[in-house]
């Protein structure tokens, strides 16, 4: 969350709880794995790890996204 907010210079701001439906969707598709572990100050916390399928998906999605952005930019610049 913090990462999102800080790297996007506060342009992307969402309710923090809406993280969880997104995580659940990733779980359902098998793109992340969830494990219970201990946090830095010894509390039960859940850790989400990207799976191999998730990595692959991320890469293809990333590429698709880049292509699309590039295309939009080209169209915008042409006008």
């Amino acid at each position, binding site marked *: 969350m913090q990462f999102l907010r800080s790297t996007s210079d506060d342009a992307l701001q*969402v*309710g*923090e*709880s*809406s*993280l*969880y*439906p997104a*995580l*659940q*969707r990733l*779980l*359902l*598709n*098998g793109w992340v794995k969830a494990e219970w572990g201990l*946090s830095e100050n010894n*509390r*039960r*916390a*859940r850790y989400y790890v990207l799976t191999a399928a998730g990595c692959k998906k991320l890469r293809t999605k990333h590429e698709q996204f880049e292509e699309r952005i590039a295309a939009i930019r080209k169209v915008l610049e042409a006008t």
Partner: protein
Amino acid sequence: MRRLIQRLRYWTGRKRTERELAEEMELHRAMRQEELERSGMPGKEAGHASRRAMGNVSVAREDARAIWIWPWLEGLFSDLRFALRGLRRDRAFALAAIAMLALAVGLNATMFTVMNTMLFRGFPLVQENDRLVYIQEQGPSGCCMSYPDFEVWRSQAQAFEGMAFIAERPVTFSDGGESSIRIVPFTVSANTFELLGVQPMLGRDFVSADEGPGAAPVAILNYRFWESRFGKRDDIIGSTVYFDRAPATIIGVMPDGFDFPTQSDIWMPLAHTPELHQRSGLAIFEDPGGFLAFGRLRDGADLDEARAELETINRSLEAEYPETNRRVVPTVKTHSQFFVGQDAPMIYGLLWAAGWFILLIACANLANLVLARTVGRWREFSTRIALGAGSGRMIRRILVESLTIAIVAGALGWWIVNWGVRGWAAATASPYQILDHTVDSGRLAYLVAISVAAAIMFSLAPVGRVLRLGVNGPLRGDARGVTRDPRGKRLAAVTVATQMALAVVLLSGAGVLVRSLFNIVGAETGVRDPENIVVGTLRLPPDRYPSPESRLAYFDRLEAQLTSIPGIDAEALAVSLPVGNRYPRAIEIEGRPSPPDGSEPVGLLAVGPDYFRVVGASAISGRDFNNGDDRPEGLPVAIVNQRFAADFWPGEQALGKRLRAEDGEWRIVVGVVSNIMQGDPLRQQFYPLIYVPFRQEPPPNQRPASFLVRTGVPPDQVMQVVRAEVEQSDSGVTLQDFATLKASFAFNRDRMPLAHAELGKNAAMAPIFAAIALLLAAIGLYAVVAHSINQRRKEIGVRMALGAAAQDIRRMVLGDGMLPVAIGTILGLAASLAVNRVLQSQLVGVSPNDPLTMAGAPVVLILVALLACQIPARRAMKVDPTVVLRND
């Protein structure tokens, strides 16, 4: 797929997962709070701020759930719970709806199954019935088959994968012991079972060598016969039995439930006798169904192609053998056309349509019921809509409730189908019609489909109303504004009118069918008190009575025994019973040139001297036969019936005229007797008949003879004795159709021409459908009228307070209820004029627009409708204005 498993895993552990999710989110929040506190925010404020940062936690939680479980599925469960609760609360409604729908879908699916069986399914166990065609020949002299023609077909026709020939062969059967019985096995081409795709369950099939000249005689048993005669002994294969005292080896047993082409105990290979190879075809003694060919169509060939091909072959045969094959054409038919009749699609299509009529009537009732129920819950629905329930959600709720009813009704309907088809099969079983009555998954799919379709049909009206329902109406005041909606009233009137119209169509259809049946079984036969005449048909074992003399000796013995029975008034032998066969012969009348192309053949019956006394015919003129006539060397005399005298000697004296049959000796007409029904299975006309003394023309070998006994005491007192005497006369004689003559006049499909063979079933089913339709329509009318009166109690109260008498109220209610009935009746009558015309081919002695039926059906309907209106009308009259008006 993997996702589905994931979802299922989530579903099973959903409590735990949800708890974990909550814990996780709480941890997230707590960490945020700690972080804020560390940065110096006071504890309480940090708690608030962290919560703000989280956003709407419950929405997130819902969203997370929705990812795992389809929300509509969850909603469906809640709707289902809701529907079950609602139905439990309104038990009367639920029971009525389920009972009506179960009856309707059950009947509909039963008729669908029956229609399928009669039209498409063919023989049980046989592979690909729809590729089989059944072939006979039709010539100027009637049916049946010439084996040499068949051989030409088999060698030349391209449309067939294979063909086989089937012939009946009556024999006496014995398994080596003393007792022998007469049976009628089928002799078949060796490839018959192979063509059918059915293997013997024990032993081997016929091979072509079995059919060849000099082959050892073999036989294959029917399962039923194997069970009853041999107690299912496995070692039966290879044992020896005797047909007409000649030994034969049993080589196989066919599987349970297999019969082909009609019921028979034994199959044998085709015997290539000289008679079989006669070009002119086979002599037919009794059932013309006994000879036929069948073929399996080659892939890609169809019935019409096969027919055209055989017709071409027959034309060339006609050119080649003008003597025997003149105007002989093949008849090529499907199973249904051959065994059920050409009209079968019309008959069973209509029965199925009747099933749909019932279902439509039931759906109309249900629509009204569900609508009334929805109207009763207007406030609830409005409240829900006001609170934000979408109309989609409301519609789904109604649909789920309807589907719940439909599912329960469908389950009951499935039971009705199984029971109904079994009942139908038992009630209509005939040895001459082998049918596949199994109820399989295809029927189940149909039942499910119509149940769901019905649920959707009867939900349409309430759904339509919900769509128009706003928040305002019902919530504002009481429900009056909505319920007096003229549209709802019009809808109810339309459903009532439709129901009545459908009921009228069914009633008038049933009416003409039942009248046809009564015209057959109730026809004037010319026999007096047939209930006091005991009759039976005898078949003598041909091997034991080869000569006419030996047969006459047997008849002498039998008659002596019969006359000695106390309680018997008179007894006579005859070649055929009244209403039975008339054995037509070409005749010649003295002094008249015989017409060159053969006149219409005339029935000639040999009867014993007391025959006319037994049947109670009255002599018009002349004398009866006497014992002196009834000897082989007796005076050649004849008695003709009234119809004969009127046809051949109009205005002349028949007595003393001479006539002869074909090349027989000349006979003097000594008497004219009243008409007795003979030779017309539909019993609509008296044919001209000639009677001759029994012993002058006794039945030839293989042909049955009948006896008639008039009793002075109730027949059931002597029937046992008569049977015992007949069995004692010779144990090898088979006694068939032993009953009173009255009982033998009952409708029997096996004695009817194929075109009317199914009439008995129609005429039995149609009134049942009509009665159910009438009942359902009456219930529907009652419900509509009762409901409208309930809604109008206040109005009625006001009218009464203003001075309306009870009679006025009654008139108002009846008028309201009967108007749609009247409209429906008129529409129904118009429709039945069309529907009954389709039935025409089934009708006997009655016009499709039979005035009695056309007048009777509306009268019955209106009486029932009046009754259905009367009950709520009476309640309306009892409305107490003071109570109703104060209540508001």
